[in-house]
């Protein structure tokens, strides 16, 4: 666990949190790795974990009948992959494919929720930080949806 703690305290996402808080969060976390070409999760599968990428690149893809497999977004060092563990029905909305070898911290969602409920201040801190990530990502996706380059001359 101390190895996970050492990793987490150096991540910008945890900057400003106390060692005690990071230690508590580390109890829900493990270091994992995925080889290039492998799949971290598949659309429709049960969503239990979220991943903080330490190295490597992950592509979120969506399969449709009409367009085949499309990459919706790629995620890179310092970014989180996977939010479906937070709310029912706890199923992934996309595939997460490994573009280049990935090292990551895997957080166990149910454990993280328990830790947050036991310490509401920590829970609020984590939720606020997660929300900031989600909002920034949503804003970015909105610009993507505008297809701004199609009419630009």
């Amino acid at each position: 666990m101390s190895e996970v703690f050492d990793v987490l305290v150096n991540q910008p996402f945890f900057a400003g949190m106390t060692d005690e808080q990071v230690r508590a969060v580390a109890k829900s976390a493990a270091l994992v790795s995925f080889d290039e070409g492998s799949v971290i999760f598949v659309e429709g599968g049960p969503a239990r974990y979220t991943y903080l990428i330490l190295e490597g690149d992950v592509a979120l893809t969506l399969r449709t009948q009409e367009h085949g497999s499309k990459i919706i977004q790629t995620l890179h060092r310092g970014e989180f992959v996977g939010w479906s563990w937070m709310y029912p029905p706890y199923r992934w909305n996309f595939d997460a494919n490994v573009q280049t070898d990935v090292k990551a911290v895997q957080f166990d969602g149910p454990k993280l929720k328990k830790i947050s409920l036991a310490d509401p201040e920590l829970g609020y801190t984590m939720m606020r930080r997660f929300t900031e990530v989600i909002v920034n990502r949503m804003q970015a996706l909105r610009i993507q949806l505008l297809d701004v380059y199609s009419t630009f001359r």
Partner: protein
Amino acid sequence: MRPTARRILSVERELPDTYTLEIEPPGSDWSFLPGQYTMLYAFGIGEVPISISGDPSDATRIVQTIRAAGAVTDALVAKVPGDFVGLRGPYGTAWDTKAGEGRDVLIIAGGIGLAPVRPLVLDVLNHRDRYGNVTLLYGARSPRDLLFADQLQEWRGRFDLEVLITVDQAEQTWRGPVGVVTSLIGRSSFDPDAAVAYVCGPEVMMRFTIQELERKGFSDDRLYVSMERNMKCGIGLCGHCQLGRFFICKDGPVMTCAQMAGSCWIREV
């Protein structure tokens, strides 16, 4: 103010709707600064402002990249070598390369916005020892829409230039980033307290890019943007391109965010 008839030397198809024309300069002393544009006239049809996209150190040709998006640009890209176009200029303000000297340089382009910054990239590379880290961030609609793909490939092979490319949508065969160009900012290496940024692309892209750069610590006097408006006269007379108190054809297209003081983000303007 009167256009001079200039011969087209070559026409190259960059993308299905985008072509690069090489045009004979009006004289051996003709020159331009990175970021400037000319008014190109398709005889009998009309005149449009087109950014110069070539190397400022090469005076033998005027290189202009045009996206066919209307009657005039359709006519311009249909030209063949030996045809003539009318030319006025160069006009407008330039990318302030002096401001970047001794500093890290971040160049951010979206879509065909790479054309007006290509002379800047080439100029910086021509005088590479004057700058710190140099980074080019480029966003396009899809891998098929990457402008100057061969040159991007060549630039990516250089050790003294960091090139990061992202697209808005891609098939699974694409190995690079997918997402908006702002997502590349956090992945590039520059000192936000001292770097200079040059940004060109659709206004909404520039708006979000500037917000992100300001969040990273850039001050607005070190943020240069190239504004596009409906330019007609090119010399600040007709008012078609007015943006607040500025005429973009004359006071721009390149301006600092400090100069504009947010006026381009006002909806009514």
